[in-house]
């Protein structure tokens, strides 16, 4: 063997080893993806065609698994539809569009099957809810004619109450004066406020026309246009939702319904049948490290619900002490503890606690007084939203009380910090990547920042102010995003605060009366938000692409069920609960591109608590979890 041949042999050997290494690594990755795709491949598919006597676009095909009480919903494109990842079992399939619907067809699907189905629609109720007796629709300008008093309604009332609240409630001048008095806190000299809305507008409010003369104009206006002889009316949507049929045909919703309690038990029990309307009431969702989705059920009795999306199995956990002391949000820390503070409940004046549930022991292991030193003097004080910083300290907003509580993990100490804004009603609470806590102020439409290092508050007013903001979030560049509801003829907006410049940028949502609730980024920088419906405009999960400023809208399976919170997975699936559903409370998910599904499990990109960036804590947690 000469030296040249030897060298060639060495090079070939090295190249061979490199090739083997590359093949091993990529092969491993392929194996993982293949395993994940195998999870989906073992399930069933259903596709087909839809016909109708008139033209239709993006008809909604409801594919209900009767065994598991799950509904898949996909959209037609030129009359064709397809779906995948269906659990084997017995199905009921129907399709609806505006003014059109089909009969239910039953089909049984086996694992791995790719079944076909043809559906025929005819005139029917379609996707919209049935009309109510005695309620009519009219144009906004007909219901709200120009005149003195309208300015107060549009700027003062519709900021929070939307355009149908007043028109649906005709009443006498006595009632209207009582309503005005409620908002001005007329009874508060004699007692404490019993809701965070009460007294939100005092006679000293300076954000919009609300002087005494203007309040009298308001009374005259509503008495004239919405007096005791008026009929309830709804504002007709004057703009169709712009739908991209081709994009929608790639999307698939799944709703996992909460089991309805048997008669005489749970929410139907004698103790709770009259409380909370006797229904289950899904509120917020979060993911744990194992891909399960957790939900707060605000019905009575209160429950935490754990859903394993890969099987459709649910398990309920009752809150402690009678499961009636109030709940709302939840969050999950890197140790797996599910945190859920107490809200108003059936004892709105009780001392409220920060509750922590350990899924491993299935016990409420933490019951921490939220205000041990009684810093908040309101007789009624309720907690709601939370955020975790990088040290897993917990910050909880007092929506009734105007403060946040910090639970310091290392010491177990709770400290209460009153919010600087007068009459603050803190709604959404989040942490940015510098461990600042950001809070949406429901009462004013401002955003408050709490610097956790020097314990200072800073307030920010968006360009649209006053406004109505409930939720906010942070993107990968540490920008703060907030969703601003529409107000009369002023459209709903997404607002971005650039922390590096301190400047706001706002984007108008191209919808009729948009009420964007939560806003949450995906891994590609798109902002996803849930939009509340109107009586004749469907509830939506929507996407905004800040790079090219385009919008995409996905009608939800339940036309009239609003959603307060969305959570995005590392694969870009959007989880939610159709909170407004009276008949079908659920945990739901939107897959914008069903072909990208590799698992039905729900995982944050960087693990709980769901920050959109790899913070030191989550990096550590991810490494620990991967060992």
């Amino acid at each position, binding site marked *: 063997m000469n030296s040249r041949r030897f060298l060639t042999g060495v090079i070939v050997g090295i190249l061979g080893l490199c090739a083997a290494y590359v093949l091993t690594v990529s092969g491993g990755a392929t194996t993982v993806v293949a395993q994940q795709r195998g999870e989906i491949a073992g399930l069933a598919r259903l596709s087909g065609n839809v016909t109708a006597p008139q033209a239709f676009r993006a008809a909604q095909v409801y594919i209900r698994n009767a065994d598991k009480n799950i509904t898949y919903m996909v959209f037609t494109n030129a009359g064709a539809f397809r779906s995948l990842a269906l659990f084997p079992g017995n199905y009921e399939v129907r399709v609806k569009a505006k003014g059109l619907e089909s009969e239910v067809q039953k089909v049984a699907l086996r694992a791995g099957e790719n079944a076909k189905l043809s559906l025929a629609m005819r005139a029917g109720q379609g996707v919209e809810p049935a009309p109510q007796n005695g309620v009519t629709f009219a144009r906004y300008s007909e219901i709200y004619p120009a005149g003195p008093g309208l300015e107060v309604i549009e700027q003062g009332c519709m900021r929070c109450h939307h355009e149908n*609240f007043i028109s649906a409630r005709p009443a006498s001048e006595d009632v209207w004066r009582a309503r005005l008095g409620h908002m001005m806190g007329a009874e508060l000299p004699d007692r404490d406020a019993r809701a965070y809305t009460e007294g939100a507008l005092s006679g000293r409010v300076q954000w919009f026309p609300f002087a005494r003369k203007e309040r009298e104009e308001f009374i005259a206006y509503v008495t004239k246009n919405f007096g005791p002889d008026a009929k309830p009316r709804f504002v007709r949507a004057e703009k169709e939702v712009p739908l991209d049929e081709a994009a929608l045909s790639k999307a698939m919703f799944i709703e996992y319904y909460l089991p309805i309690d048997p008669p005489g038990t749970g929410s139907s029990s004698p103790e709770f049948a009259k409380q909370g309307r006797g229904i289950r009431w899904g509120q917020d969702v979060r993911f744990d490290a194992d891909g399960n989705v957790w939900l707060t059920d605000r019905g009575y009795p209160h429950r935490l619900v754990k859903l394993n999306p890969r099987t459709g199995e649910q398990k309920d956990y009752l809150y402690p002490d009678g499961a009636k002391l109030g709940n709302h949000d939840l969050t999950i820390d890197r140790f797996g503890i599910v945190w859920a503070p107490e809200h108003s409940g059936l004892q709105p004046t009780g001392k409220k606690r920060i509750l922590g549930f350990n899924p491993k022991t299935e016990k409420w292991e933490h019951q921490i007084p939220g205000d041990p030193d009684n810093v908040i003097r309101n007789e009624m004080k309720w907690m709601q939203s939370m955020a975790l910083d990088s040290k897993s300290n917990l910050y909880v907003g007092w929506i009734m009380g105007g403060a946040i509580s910090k639970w310091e993990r290392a010491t177990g100490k709770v400290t209460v910090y009153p919010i600087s804004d007068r009459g603050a009603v803190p709604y959404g609470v989040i942490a940015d990547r510098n461990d600042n806590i950001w809070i949406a102020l429901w009462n004013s439409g401002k955003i408050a920042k709490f610097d956790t290092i020097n314990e200072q508050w800073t307030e920010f007013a968006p360009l649209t102010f006053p406004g109505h903001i409930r939720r906010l979030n942070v993107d990968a560049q540490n920008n703060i995003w907030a969703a601003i509801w529409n107000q009369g003829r002023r459209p709903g907006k997404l607002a971005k605060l650039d922390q590096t410049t301190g400047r706001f940028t706002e984007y108008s949502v191209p919808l009729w009366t948009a009420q964007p609730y939560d806003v949450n980024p995906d891994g590609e920088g798109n902002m996803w938000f849930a939009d509340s419906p109107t009586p004749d405009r469907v509830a939506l999960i929507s996407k905004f692409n800040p790079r090219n400023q385009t919008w995409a809208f996905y009608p939800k399976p339940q036309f009239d069920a609003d959603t307060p919170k969305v959570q995005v997975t590392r694969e870009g699936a959007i989880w939610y609960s159709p909170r*407004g559903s009276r008949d079908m409370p659920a945990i739901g998910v939107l897959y914008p591109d069903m072909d990208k599904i590799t698992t039905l499990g729900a995982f944050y990109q960087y693990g709980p608590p769901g920050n959109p960036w790899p913070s030191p804590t989550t990096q550590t947690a991810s490494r620990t979890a991967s060992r």
Partner: protein
Amino acid sequence: MAVADDADRQSDGQPVICNRLGGSDRTRRPCDWGSRVGRVLSHVGRVLSDPAKWTAVAVVVAAAAIGGSARAAQTPGKRSVMDGVYTTDQAARGRAQYKKRCVLCHLDNGQGHAAVPVIPGESLEREGDAEAPAVAGEPFQKKWNGRTAWELYGTMASTMPVGSPKMLSPQEYADLLAFLFELNKFPAGQSELTPAREQLESITIGR
């Protein structure tokens, strides 16, 4: 305060309420106890002197006693809201309280939250006052039929206004009760409702 158990009749047939305290209301007059007792004793003497009348009276008295005791066993001192258990003046005071404390949720005519249409898409959170029941009309009367005014009074005073129950005085709650009876078209009468338990327990709701 006037009492109804001393009622007599005027020449025009309208009930006159004897007022032990000598009130000045035009439908009331002080009791003339001497002349009334004398008339009764004279009549009793005439009856007892005639054996036939005495026997007849004994039968009537026995029957009355049996019947009376039977009624007493069923409904001792019971009245109905149809018997006029409040006054219009009292209902007017109750209406003023209602306008101040109740009308926000229970609305003008006591229809309650059921009168507000469901707004499709409106958050359950924003419905507000979903628990405000009707306090007038068929739903109310069906719910409370056969129950006592004391039960209704107790429910009102222990739960209303929401968030601050028992904030009104007992008489103010009784006035509100009177207004609810007026709202439900139960007739007014000559005497006011009091918050006294024994009085309210004796009044049954229903037509």
